């Protein structure tokens, strides 16, 4: 009767959800966008996705083996990073870009800052911006077998109009995963239903962007123009999958609204006044840098604490 049993501090039961579940859910939610990308751009897209994911995962593995740290690739976070990076690459990039991107994302943006949870920048977008700056022409070359024209946003910028319905479906040029609004929203709904993400960041991001665009944009509240802006340029992918990245968005509820609005504002400025169409990536990266500040300002007041007189 007197066997020693396990004692530990409370609570003695735990919820079932683990980090792995969350990451796997994100991977699943990205599958429609991947699938559509492959359908849209052909088999080359599949190879780009596979190579990017593999290089991200292997980088994490080798780094941890070399540093004799516990191996964490089982948590699927490197897979998520690889997938997101791949979906943000044009289909025409050479193979080595995928490898360099995967390594940069994991090694520089994630591991050197201490690994999962410690990075202050979204690894996939950090790598994308690094690639954009270092290999601008390769990263903005949207020539491929399926499409020859410029991306819809580039069209808009030069004052022309884009076919909005094609954009919503995804029948247009762009990076592998950003073209189909429908595929992305499908995945996002899956995550929303599972409660993996919520609408605080994407909602305030999109709403503030639309309001700014309508009030101060060149076309006012023109339906086609606004929808084209939302469907194009990785806005959906950015709002639902990159801006909601746990690690690099504020953890406080009010902070999430503030963060969303800042992203909307920055995207608006980059898109309307900037020279490139990559507003979303830069906006999110800059937003990431502001997160510690936002968290500090929006620290919640504890239950029942009265305002200081």
């Amino acid at each position, binding site marked *: 009767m007197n066997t020693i049993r396990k*004692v530990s501090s409370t*609570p003695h039961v735990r919820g079932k959800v683990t980090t792995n579940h969350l990451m796997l859910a994100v991977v699943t939610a990205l599958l429609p966008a991947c699938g559509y990308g492959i359908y849209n751009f052909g088999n080359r897209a599949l190879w780009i996705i596979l190579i990017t994911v593999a290089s991200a995962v292997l980088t994490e593995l080798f780094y941890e083996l070399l540093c004799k740290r516990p191996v964490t690739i089982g948590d699927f976070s490197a897979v998520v990073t690889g997938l997101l990076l791949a979906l943000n690459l044009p289909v025409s990039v050479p193979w080595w870009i995928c490898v360099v991107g995967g390594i940069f994302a994991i090694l520089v943006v994630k591991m050197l800052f201490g690994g999962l949870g410690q990075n202050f920048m979204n690894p996939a977008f950090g790598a994308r911006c690094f690639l954009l700056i270092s290999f601008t022409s390769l990263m903005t070359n949207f020539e491929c077998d399926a499409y020859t024209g410029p991306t819809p946003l580039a069209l808009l910028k030069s004052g022309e109009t884009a076919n909005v319905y094609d954009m919503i479906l995804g029948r247009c040029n762009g990076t592998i995963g950003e073209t189909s609004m429908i595929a992305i929203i499908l995945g996002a709904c899956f995550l929303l239903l599972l409660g993996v993400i919520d609408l605080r960041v994407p909602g305030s991001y999109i709403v503030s962007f639309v309001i700014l665009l309508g009030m101060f944009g060149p076309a006012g509240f023109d339906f086609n123009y606004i929808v084209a802006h939302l469907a194009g340029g990785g806005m959906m992918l950015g709002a639902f999958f990159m801006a909601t990245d746990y*690690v690099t968005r504020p953890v406080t509820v009010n902070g999430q609204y503030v963060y969303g609005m800042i992203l909307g504002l920055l995207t608006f400025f980059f898109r309307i006044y900037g020279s490139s169409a990559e507003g979303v990536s830069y906006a999110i990266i800059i937003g990431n840098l502001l997160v510690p500040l936002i968290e500090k300002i929006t620290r*919640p007041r504890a239950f029942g604490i009265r305002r200081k007189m």
Partner: protein
Amino acid sequence: MTRSTFVGGIHPYEGKELSKDKPIQDILPKNDLVYPLSQHIGAPAVPLVKPGDKVLVGQKIAEAGGFVSACICSAVSGTVKAIEQRRVVTGDMVSSIVIENDHQYEEKEIEKPRPLEDLSREEIITYIKEAGIVGMGGAGFPTHVKLSVKEPEKIEYVIVNCAECEPYLTSDYRRMVEEPDKIIQGLQVVLSLFPNAKGILAIEDNKQDCIELFKEKTVDEPRILVKKLKTKYPQGAERSLIYAVTKRKLDSTRLPADVGCVVNNADTIVAVCQAVIHGRPLMERIVTITGDAIKEPGNFRVKIGTNYSELIEAAGGFKSEPEKIISGGPMMGFGIFETDLPTTKTASALVCLTRDEVSLLEPTACINCGRCLEVCPARLMPNKLSDFSAKHKEEEFLNYYGMECVECGCCSYVCPAKRYLAQNIKSMRKLMLGKKKK
């Protein structure tokens, strides 16, 4: 009827079906009874007996050791065997009175109190005090102190906590089903202390039958209302409960009385009824013995002081070897490593599990998901607080309201990275509380 609730909280696996429909069984102690002198909040009780003395059922064996303290009464007749150090559920050794049971149950002469209407405020409180009643939900705060508020006419709500939000526990539920009149009588006693108060029976909506039952029983009681609460943990935590019932918010520096509330748990209210109406001190309580390692889970009326091993025996013993035994509920109870421990006034359950979920889990890196913030009933940032605790940053800990934590464990429960959030915060709080006292 709308369901009242608070912000945050979790929905753990309830496990109540194991013992929910098992009527309360009486068990009599076979061996010695052990009464730790410190089984309440406040100063330890002072023994009134010495080894060799003969005691009777209901005899006071230890006197309250101060204003915030409670006396202890024997639940059996027999001889005082020793006053010595015994282990209690927290793992500490506590000076305890050991009584050898003579199995005669010779009662001390009980003088039946006069009817409630004729009793003065002071008399009622004295009865409660002499009965050694403390908060039986787990906290163990002496009830007579709780009820001695400075301005009784300012109390607007007397809330009976029938939430029983901890998983597995069904002792309050059985009480409500089997002895609803005692709860109502007890509430009437407390209400008689507070002329302007309404009595509220706060019940979670997973106990719909009790809600109906009490509504029926209190139709003619204008001062007693039944309030339906959403089933959610920690609905029964004092501050959450007050908010759910009255929408009044309370931080750790204030008492329920400051917002016109008095909260007592259902079992405590029954003890009050026993003391003031029948003149019987607190000698027994209902304990739920349950978990997947127990052969016949059930609810038992147990003499306080009975050894835990006897309770497990009464429930048919183990069906398989438990890996973990918890005294109290799985969210806030104590993990115990032996069963040679006495039942105290605050022991609501023994949960015996074949598998210890927690020791299998490796904490991993925080992914900043925000789940801990969402569930925290105190609206804190457990991720940050736990970090500050681990790094021992006192100032930041206080700035982020660490002392407001109610130690409910919700944050640890939901954390997908399985971090020891509540555990870290708890140890830091303990440290800081210790410092404050100095």
